[in-house]
């Protein structure tokens, strides 16, 4: 039980599923699974949440959200997220050209931060979720602990992609000084925001317990 004991990769001990128990995902109480009429669910007596053995339709829903996010990832990177116009002159910035501009302005730390948040994080989320989906569908036994870790990482880092969007909202609020300088948000920003939202929902709909299920079933 302590975090120091490492039981390596060998699955051991009973799971809620193998004991025929349903785990309430809200209050963590356990209930014996019973047959219910089609379309009906058991409910937790304490918090009234409906009880499911696994997140419903996890793989199909996650695939749908990941594919939608991949399609929007292209316009998010091709189209400008904003145009800064100073004294009538200026050019549109995409996510990548924004990073390059920061590098040229000798703001290396911020450039690395934005590169990580706006380019690495969405890529990692999309590739990571695709990898997890395929590995579960192929009933892979490969490093389940590391794959669970990857899932938790994807869950945690997702929000950091929003840095660019927040910066944009601050810039448009500050720089509305009429003819001198304007900042116009572009279509890439909306696409990028949609990618962030879709990948957050995708991470939420994936059920990491599926990684372990096939290993136990194949034992």
């Amino acid at each position, binding site marked *: 039980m302590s975090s120091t004991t490492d039981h390596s990769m060998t699955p051991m001990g009973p799971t809620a599923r193998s004991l025929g128990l349903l785990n309430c995902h809200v209050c963590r109480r356990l209930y014996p699974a019973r047959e219910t009429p089609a379309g009906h669910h058991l409910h937790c007596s304490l918090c009234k949440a409906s009880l499911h053995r696994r997140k419903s339709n996890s793989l199909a829903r996650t695939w749908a959200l990941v594919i939608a996010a991949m399609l929007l990832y292209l316009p998010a990177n091709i189209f400008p997220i904003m145009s800064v116009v100073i004294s009538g002159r200026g050019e549109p910035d995409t996510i990548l050209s924004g990073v390059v501009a920061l590098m040229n302005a000798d703001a290396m730390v911020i450039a690395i931060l934005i590169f990580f948040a706006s380019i690495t994080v969405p890529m990692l989320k999309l590739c990571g979720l695709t990898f997890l989906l395929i590995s579960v569908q192929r009933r892979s036994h490969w490093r389940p602990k590391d794959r669970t870790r990857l899932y938790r990482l994807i869950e945690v880092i997702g929000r950091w992609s929003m840095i660019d969007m927040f910066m944009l*909202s601050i810039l448009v609020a*500050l720089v509305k000084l009429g003819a001198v300088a304007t900042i116009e948000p572009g279509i890439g920003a909306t696409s990028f925001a949609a990618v962030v939202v879709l990948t957050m929902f995708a991470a939420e709909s994936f059920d990491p317990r599926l990684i372990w299920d096939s290993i136990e079933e194949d034992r």
Partner: protein
Amino acid sequence: MTGLASQAHALIACQDCDLIHEKRAIPDGHKANCARCGSLLYCHPHNSIQRTFALAMACLVLFLVANLSHFMSFSLHGRVQEAHILTGVLELYRGGLMGLALLVFLTSFLAPLMNILLLLALAGPIYFGKAPRYLPVAFRLYEGLCPWAMVSVYLLGVFVAIVKLADLASTPIGLGFYALIALMLLMTATQARFDPESLWKAIESRR
């Protein structure tokens, strides 16, 4: 449908790999992790409810300060513009980016505010010895909003905006900036203090 016998109440399933564990008493500030996948199983900080209530009150005050005072201003050729969280949302909306405006509104304003209010609504009654019926619903709403409350990410956005505008004009920092930093730290502390298990125990004991 009733829960398992008292013996089963001492059992808990890992949310990431489904492995069953026996619950044990752990010292304050410690965490119990899954023996198989390492995920957090539970931690039961002491005085969770009292401290959550007090910290959430402080969060609410800081939230108001952070939103009522500007966090930075921008002056160019003698004209000064001040930035609040909500002016950014408004300008995005005026610029025709409805979806982005909604997302920034949700993540930087609505979700953090709702989370503070929900923590007060959850911890408050239990602190005063009551367990109203709305607690489970309020908790599920709180849990659902947690990933969407992004005060810390917003703060980094402010840093980047300062750097971006540095060679364009001067950008003096306002009181709201310090309030945002304090809010970020305090909200993290509050959420770490909040132990849902004490909520469920309170509901169970008042049946």
